[in-house]
């Protein structure tokens, strides 16, 4: 068994693990020595303020970004140092739901969903392919939209089609980058229910990045909070709710810090503009 003495991360028995991961962009340190292991079939939600490195973290899990330091493991195999060519095969085990959906503008909904299938399989039976697309779209409640272009869909519909595309290759792991951002509360709940349904019916391992606490409590088996590039809390949703750390309470209750409040109260909006005249 391969175990890290400092972090107790079991990389060989975890489906997905990161060890001592750090990432800098120039002088800006975004992730600072993060070690985590993700359990199979569970939904892990990563929370934290905007710009704290949540998206950067999940992009490392699929090799879209390379770490400045540390390592990433998938089924015990180190993947962060693999070539792009070798990573391509590993990425077929993952589905990635991008924040804006990232549907291909030039392709229809049908073509978007068959894209990953076409890339990795020789298609001989197109009737069967249509059936697969229908099944995937039915799972996300979008059957009948095969002929639409992404530009004709609403934000929520785009995310649901993007989710159908993410599950097209029946992946073991789905990474969700802020799946409910920009959606109304009802549409957000639809996405939450879809995440739960996929986990229950397909036993998919989900890693969700969000700052929507309602969504986090609903779908999470485990919540991790990032702050200033480090993991500050890691536990079950109930543990997070009752956590004593002020940063956690401020975040989950959506409260401004006293320092920021004072700055806003002392700032004189309008007077600066008046001085210019």
């Amino acid at each position, binding site marked *: 068994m391969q175990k890290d003495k400092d972090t107790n991360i079991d990389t060989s028995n975890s489906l997905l693990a990161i060890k001592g991961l750090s990432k800098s962009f120039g002088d800006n340190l975004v992730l600072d020595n993060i070690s985590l292991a993700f359990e199979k079939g569970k939904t892990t939600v990563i929370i934290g303020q905007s710009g704290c490195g949540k998206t950067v973290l999940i*992009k490392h899990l*699929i090799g*879209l970004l390379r770490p400045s330091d540390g390592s990433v493991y998938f089924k015990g195999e180190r993947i962060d140092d693999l070539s*792009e*060519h070798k*990573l*391509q*095969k*590993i*990425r*077929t085990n*993952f589905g*990635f739901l*991008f*924040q*804006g959906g*990232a*549907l*291909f*503008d030039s392709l229809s909904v049908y073509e978007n969903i068959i*894209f*990953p299938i076409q*890339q*990795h399989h020789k298609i001989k039976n197109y009737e069967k392919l249509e059936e697969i697309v229908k099944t995937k779209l039915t799972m996300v409640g979008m059957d009948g939209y095969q002929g639409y272009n992404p530009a004709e869909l609403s934000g929520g519909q785009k995310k649901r089609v993007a989710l159908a*595309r993410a599950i097209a*290759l029946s992946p073991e792991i789905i990474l969700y980058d802020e799946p409910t951002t920009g959606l109304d509360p009802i549409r957000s709940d639809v996405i939450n229910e879809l995440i739960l349904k996929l986990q229950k019916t397909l036993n998919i391992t989900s890693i969700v990045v969000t700052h929507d606490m309602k969504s986090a409590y609903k779908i999470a088996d485990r919540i991790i909070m990032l702050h200033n590039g480090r993991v500050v809390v890691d536990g079950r949703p109930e543990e997070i709710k009752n956590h004593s750390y002020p940063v956690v309470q401020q975040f989950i209750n959506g409260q401004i810090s006293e320092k920021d409040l004072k700055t806003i109260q002392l700032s004189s909006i309008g007077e600066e503009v008046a001085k210019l005249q």
Partner: protein
Amino acid sequence: MSDNRKRSMLEQFGGSVITGINHCGEFSRFHANAIITSLQAFFIPKTYPLIWTQMLAIGVRSVPVVCITGCFVGMVLAVQAYDQLAGLGLEEHLGVLINISVVKELGPVLTAVMLAGRVGGALTAELGTMNVTEQISAVRSMGTDPIRYLVSPRILACLLLTPFLIIYADFMGIIGGYVISVLHFGINNKAYWDFSASGIEMWDISIGIIKGFFFGAAIAGVSCYKGFNCKEGAAGVGQACTEAFVGSFIFILVIDFALAVVFKGIYASLWPIRSLL
């Protein structure tokens, strides 16, 4: 103080040099990868539909604008050169002057410049928008090489069709020159074509067309690179388009000069078998 300032200037200079070298390295790696992948794609029937689609957008839809460019180049040359030659009583030699200029230099170069604006701008804007909306990351996340899926078809379409577009431009340039010289200035029809035929060899026409392969590859290569490395936002896409056009234009001129030297050397070495050419 002055020492500090000197060091900071030195640091700035050093930083610029390192950034420049990094860009050169990235540019070279991107192109090496694109060339290898394009050669592979040429023998993979699965990529042919992607190449046809790009051929339609890049080649077929450029025919009208290239024909108009060629035609006006021929007409302008006739108008500008007629007075000088008529003054010497050599107006019947106008055909050879127009046609050799068109087939050897102006046809290929102006067609390439026109394509750099029309096709290069469109490629950079399309790929740049795909980059900022994470569609290129989506291609990678689904285990597909974006160079193979997005860059190779564009490079192959541009490389294969630019020589044909040069043939169209040459043809229209010859027609334009003929219309002004013979129909407008009243130069003897037979003398015009006889002098043209005696002054232009198959070699002259061939080198103009061969240049097209290099120009096409340069336009698509530079435009795709700029699209892939486009900064975020509308301004980023705009800047990438401008840089792509300027970069392609400079590459066209440099390649034109280099090929002129190379072809001259080849022609000199083939002089003994000139009649066969």
